[in-house]
């Protein structure tokens, strides 16, 4: 190959091939390689000879030159290995921005009625109970939709799943303008709340576009930024309403109806952008890849089955309910807590309480980043430890929060609690992409639904009856957080280990064995498992820095697999 290498080390021919490929793409990569402050790994991407045990991956097809060079460095599945925040380059970063914006749009729509409630409750003659039910309905709907959308992602791809959800719930936003009874209002908010299932399409899409090294950071950033949609609608909707009521001179009861055109439009626009500009995978869309024979058609039952029988799915559904779910519950009760217990004026209480949710802009991405950073040295064990310790620390902060009697201390502990709870939510989705490759969508959906269910249950148990005062409820909630985080200690991947147990030393404890157990022999004969195989190989980094045995390959696998297997080498630490 004759490549000049400033780190002149003896490289195998395989590594030389890849190094050549990397250098060939360097002009377009140069800016992206060295300027991503968020990426946990070193920015010297040319350093292929370093001893971190990460395989460089077989890049046979890239070497053959039939794929267009990507603007970001990629692995063998063409998933980006780095994130460049302010780039919109297709396919990876464009997908990133489309994804968080479409999820953001659904938050805006779901929480749009909230700031206009003073007008809506007069127009529809709502009682306090109606308003409470509508608020619960708007998040409860997302439980069902997250489960369904997970399966849809696995089957038709995240692009269509996202557009399907947004475009089919947009009518609910528009027809809110025609509602005239309390029942109609509650039903509308339920249907609009279904759109919050786009959380799953967002995380699934990011897990398909970005590799194991940055998947936590990317998942956390998209979810954290999208969460701001709730706060954004508190700003946008009153402005729009006053514009329509004031300068345009419409009556109050007409103006709020017209105002809902705005969130509806934002939702439709973001869905159309996703369809037109986005693509499901770095190599193309599911449809095209199916035609080319590179993407298999899976069946819904199989996908759901492999998600449901995996116990890790349920462990994380429970734990996510007690980081993200708790966050939602606290968003609901915090304003009244400051107003009632510390006698803050209502507006001030609202502003102070809103900082809890607004912290998401940095805390959730940071949680994902922490997960990726721990994975560099400790692999999956590091991710699990990061998640468990952050969430347990959040639980302890929550116990304190209920016990502090003065305002300043409460605000400080609230900020600490928000950081830990939101970081835990970000860190959760640093682990989810590795539980299963076949059923990633359904698992993301179940965990996401678990989050909302946790919110609804916590609100019901601790903050609805008058059996506990709010501060007692908060402390008890903290204890519940710690208990529901406990099962994470039992999560164990044979090839990577768990929190307390190291990885199995058996030669059959490999990534390939773990991901291929979801495919039957018949399916493997049809070659349906190839994507999982590539993913298995790319997830080798989750071993951290320990010695890795050679994978034992299935002798019945296709020749393509053998070629991949032979091409892979990785450094011993």
């Amino acid at each position, binding site marked *: 190959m004759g490549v000049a290498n400033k780190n002149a080390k003896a490289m195998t021919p395989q590594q030389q091939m890849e190094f050549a490929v990397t250098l060939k793409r360097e002009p377009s990569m140069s800016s992206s390689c060295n300027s991503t402050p968020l990426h946990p790994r070193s920015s010297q991407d040319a350093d292929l000879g370093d001893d971190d045990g990460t395989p460089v991956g077989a890049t046979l097809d890239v070497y053959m030159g039939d794929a267009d060079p990507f603007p970001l460095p990629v692995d063998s599945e063409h998933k980006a290995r780095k994130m460049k925040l302010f780039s919109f380059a297709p396919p990876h970063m464009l997908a990133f921005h489309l994804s968080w914006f479409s999820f953001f749009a659904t938050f805006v729509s779901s929480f749009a009625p909230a700031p206009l409630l003073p007008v809506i*409750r007069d*127009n529809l003659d709502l009682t*306090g109970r109606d308003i409470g039910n509508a608020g619960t309905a708007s998040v409860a709907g997302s439980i069902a939709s997250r489960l369904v959308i997970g399966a849809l992602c696995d089957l038709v791809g995240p692009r269509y799943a996202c*557009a399907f959800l947004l475009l089919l719930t947009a009518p609910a936003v528009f027809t809110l303008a025609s509602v005239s009874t309390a029942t109609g209002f509650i039903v509308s908010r339920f249907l609009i709340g279904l759109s919050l299932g786009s959380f799953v399409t967002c995380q699934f899409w990011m897990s398909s576009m970005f590799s194991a090294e940055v998947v936590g950071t990317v998942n956390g950033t998209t979810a954290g930024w999208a969460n701001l949609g709730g706060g954004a609608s508190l700003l946008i909707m009153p402005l729009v309403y006053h514009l329509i009521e004031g300068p345009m001179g419409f009556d109050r009861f*007409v103006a709020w109806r017209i105002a809902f055109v705005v969130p509806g439009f934002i939702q439709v626009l973001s*869905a159309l952008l996703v369809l037109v500009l986005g693509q499901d995978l770095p190599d193309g869309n599911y*449809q095209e890849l199916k035609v080319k024979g590179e993407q298999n058609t899976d069946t819904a039952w199989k996908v759901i089955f492999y998600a449901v029988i995996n116990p890790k799915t349920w462990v994380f559904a429970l734990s996510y309910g007690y980081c993200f779910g708790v966050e939602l519950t606290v968003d609901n009760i915090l304003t009244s807590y400051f107003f009632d217990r510390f006698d803050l004026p209502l507006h001030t209480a609202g502003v102070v309480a809103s900082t809890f949710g607004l912290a998401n802009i940095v805390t959730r991405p940071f949680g994902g980043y922490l997960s990726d950073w721990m994975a560099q040295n400790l692999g999956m064990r590091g991710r699990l430890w990061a998640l468990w310790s952050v969430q347990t620390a959040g639980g302890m902060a929550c116990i304190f929060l209920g016990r502090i009697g003065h305002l300043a201390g409460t605000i400080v502990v609230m900020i600490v609690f928000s950081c830990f709870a939101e970081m835990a939510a970000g860190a959760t989705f640093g682990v989810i992409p590795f539980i299963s490759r076949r059923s990633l969508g359904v698992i993301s959906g179940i965990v996401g639904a678990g989050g909302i269910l946790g919110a609804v249950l916590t609100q019901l148990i601790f903050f609805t009856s008058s059996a506990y005062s709010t501060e007692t409820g908060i402390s008890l909630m903290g204890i519940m957080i710690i208990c529901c985080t406990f099962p994470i200690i039992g999560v164990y991947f044979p090839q990577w280990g768990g929190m307390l147990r190291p990885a199995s030393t058996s030669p059959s404890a490999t990534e390939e064995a773990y991901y291929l157990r979801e495919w039957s022999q018949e399916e493997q004969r049809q070659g349906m498992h190839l994507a999982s195989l590539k993913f298995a190989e790319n997830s080798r980094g989750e071993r951290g820095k320990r010695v890795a045995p050679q994978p034992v390959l299935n002798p019945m696998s296709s020749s393509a697999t053998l070629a991949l297997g032979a091409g892979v080498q990785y450094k011993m630490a």
Partner: protein
Amino acid sequence: MDLAILRVASFIIVVHMSSILAEGATLFSELSNSLTVSATGADNTSPNGTKAGADELFVTWALSSAAQVDDSSYKTVELKLCFGVPSQIDRPWRKTNNVLSKDKTCGFNIGSPQPYNRAGNTINWLVRKEIPFAHYFVRAYVLDSAGEKVAYGQSSNAQRTSNLFRIEAISGRHASIDIAAAVFSAFSVISLLGFFFYEKTSTRGRKA
């Protein structure tokens, strides 16, 4: 309940005795109930079913003959449209509070403040479109020259449960809004289906 009436009565007596030195009240219970107020619809019909934006309310008020008060400090009268108890149930944003500054019972002004006369006061008021559907009564607050409330009168009973009238609000819906909503909804569903079929046929064409 009896105790509350006793307390209110004793407050009123205290106000009577110190009426010469009376200052603005901060509690509703300090006000003296010295006016009689009545509200009717057009042609002296019942105000029940008055339509917002279309019908008028006729309010008359006068000094109550039963209340022996010194009205030398009474300067202006503010008329307000207030929520009756049935429309306050389970609606904490309309809650009655004895502290006048926190009281949310009376949400709407009927006309502008008028000079105080002992009798013969009427006002015709077109019910505005922003008035929501509820059971209402009319209350008149009497202000002194400093603008502080000193007395009141209302068209309902003291507990605000009877002698209420219903106002029918506008729905806020318009045919044009409904049609626009239907059109946008249809657009959103059709664009999804359109894209789906377009991509399916274009990949099929590529395969063929």
